[in-house]
């Protein structure tokens, strides 16, 4: 390729860095740079089986759906009534427990939002999101 074309390419590639870096600085606190913001802790149902009694199920669905049916032993925690329910959850929590949050199906986002808040606000580690959610659990435990 002609050397001036190469120069032009390098020029454009270089210039694009300036606004990109500026924007990245602007977003430095909002963006997660090393891992995806939410999906990092997805677990499958079979992985949770291996954890046995260490699993503490967290149901992030609306209260009506929780009332209809839920994973045995699961505690309800959603953002409709976060404060009061978080307290109940923290009472049941212990450092060795693994929290597995689920919502209705694969496409729902409530479990991710709840897991995120458990990690960042309550500062809990070992918080996971069940892949496939309640539908997946129900499908395997009819």
């Amino acid at each position, binding site marked *: 390729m002609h050397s001036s074309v190469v120069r032009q390419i390098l020029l454009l590639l270089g210039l694009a860095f300036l606004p990109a870096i500026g924007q990245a600085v602007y977003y430095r606190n909002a963006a997660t740079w090393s891992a995806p913001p939410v999906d990092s802790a997805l677990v499958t149902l079979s992985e949770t089986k291996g954890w046995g009694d260490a699993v503490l199920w967290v149901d992030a669905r609306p209260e009506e759906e929780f009332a209809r049916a839920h994973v045995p032993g699961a505690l309800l925690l*959603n*953002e*409709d009534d*976060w*404060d009061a329910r*978080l*307290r109940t959850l923290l009472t049941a*929590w212990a450092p060795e427990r693994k929290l597995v949050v689920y919502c209705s199906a694969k496409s729902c986002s*409530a479990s991710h939002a709840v897991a995120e808040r458990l990690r*960042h606000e309550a500062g809990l580690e070992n918080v996971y999101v069940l892949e496939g959610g309640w539908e997946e659990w129900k499908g395997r435990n009819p």
Partner: protein
Amino acid sequence: MNARLILAVSFLACSLAGTAGAALTWESKAADLHPSLADKTTAAHFKYKNTGEKPVKITSVHASCGCTTAALAKDLVAPGESGEITATFTIGDRYGVQTKTITVMTDAEPTQATVLKLTATIPRLLEIAPAFVYWSANDTLEPKTITVKVQDDYPVTKLNVTSTDKSLATKVEPDSETKGFKIVVTPQEAGRPINAALKIEPDYPKDAPKTFYANVRVDSRAKKPPQ
């Protein structure tokens, strides 16, 4: 195919269908909401008009989250007629930018869903970090600090902190660095498990007071620090 399945498929395949010949024309498919601190709900109005020549029936309106309800005044829209879908978002204990979608199906385009997007930016008065402090079996009962940041320069001048367990000593200090507060928590009793909540009450807004919480747990095996 039942309606639920159609919706599920349309969610996945909203990008896999064309948009030709839309009969309902939407004024806007996106709404930006900015509720105030005192609001419990916030609503978006999505206006539409039937610009086609045949009546259009809205066959389903489905919100992506249980916290959003969508109400439809009338499901049969005559040619030239206008109307709106009201989506009400219940704030609950949410904050920050919340994006919810409402999927609308019509008989004019049975395979093509219209996706309305509602973005609510919910203000937050206090950011409490961490909202949970824990003394484990291996810890000594040294004080732990909870930082309370006041967001967006709201005029909070005082915090009233009360503990549900009397053996927890709490002290509120203004934090000049963050223009917020520090709550220093010290358990004063060892040998029994403590499960408590700290009620944090700011002096603003006066007309719609909200109580915030931080949670405290102390393992019964945690030891008193050497005197």
